[in-house]
């Protein structure tokens, strides 16, 4: 499995604010290495987040998202103590899932 991501979920007034810091090179496929060869594209393609078994967020990243992607989203219906699970899949079919409890 790839490197862990940091997930923080905080609930205020019924809205859960989720911040995720993923670890990923996010190679665009445009850069060349020192010998002039193009470094192939390697980036996260899809992200999904669920809480209590329900999907609360879905995203698609292109290669233009910065290295070590940061993502912030919010959803209703989560309470303190609930677990939020975030999963990403990249274009080489590598994947990573991390969870955090809503505080």
């Amino acid at each position, binding site marked *: 499995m790839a490197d862990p991501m940091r997930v923080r979920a905080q609930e205020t007034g019924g809205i859960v604010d989720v911040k995720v810091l993923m670890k990923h090179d*996010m190679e665009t496929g445009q850069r060349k290495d020192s010998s002039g060869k193009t470094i192939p594209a390697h980036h996260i393609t899809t992200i999904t987040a669920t809480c209590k078994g329900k999907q609360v*967020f879905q995203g698609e990243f292109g290669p233009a998202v910065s290295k070590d*992607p940061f993502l912030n*989203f919010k*959803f209703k219906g989560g309470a303190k103590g609930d677990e939020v699970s975030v999963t990403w899949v990249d274009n080489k079919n590598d994947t990573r899932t991390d969870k955090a409890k809503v505080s």
Partner: protein
Amino acid sequence: MNHKRREALRLTAVIGLMAATGLISQAEAAAWNKAAFEGKTLDEVLKALGGSSADKSGAITINAPDIAENGAVVPVGVTTTMAKTQQIAILVEKNPSALAAQFIMTADTEPFVASRVKMGQTSNVHALVKADGKWFVSTKEVKVTLGGCGG
């Protein structure tokens, strides 16, 4: 069994298995909108996302710096007051591929998203928002002093 049928069956089995184990939702199994991420202009991306035209809207706010010190990491946030927001897409007009990221809201998702994108040069950042079946757009110019594509 001929090769094509075998391949089709294998693929269905793999995707079915992935969906069944919850690794990817059924809807996602087909996803990562390749056509949208290959779009070079706002119109191409919009078409690939299923829209035909987007009305300018003042109800969309783009949170991004006027001047980005580092084009490799430009924070961009989009929020909207529109009801029934279904989708938000962030585009960097002058990037090799205009669409940086797109997000799909469920009924419980707040119409807000923030991330960081690479910008190759000073460019317009467009936020496309789909609300209640219609597409809207808002634009903000972000100046970049140091380009973010490693070149």
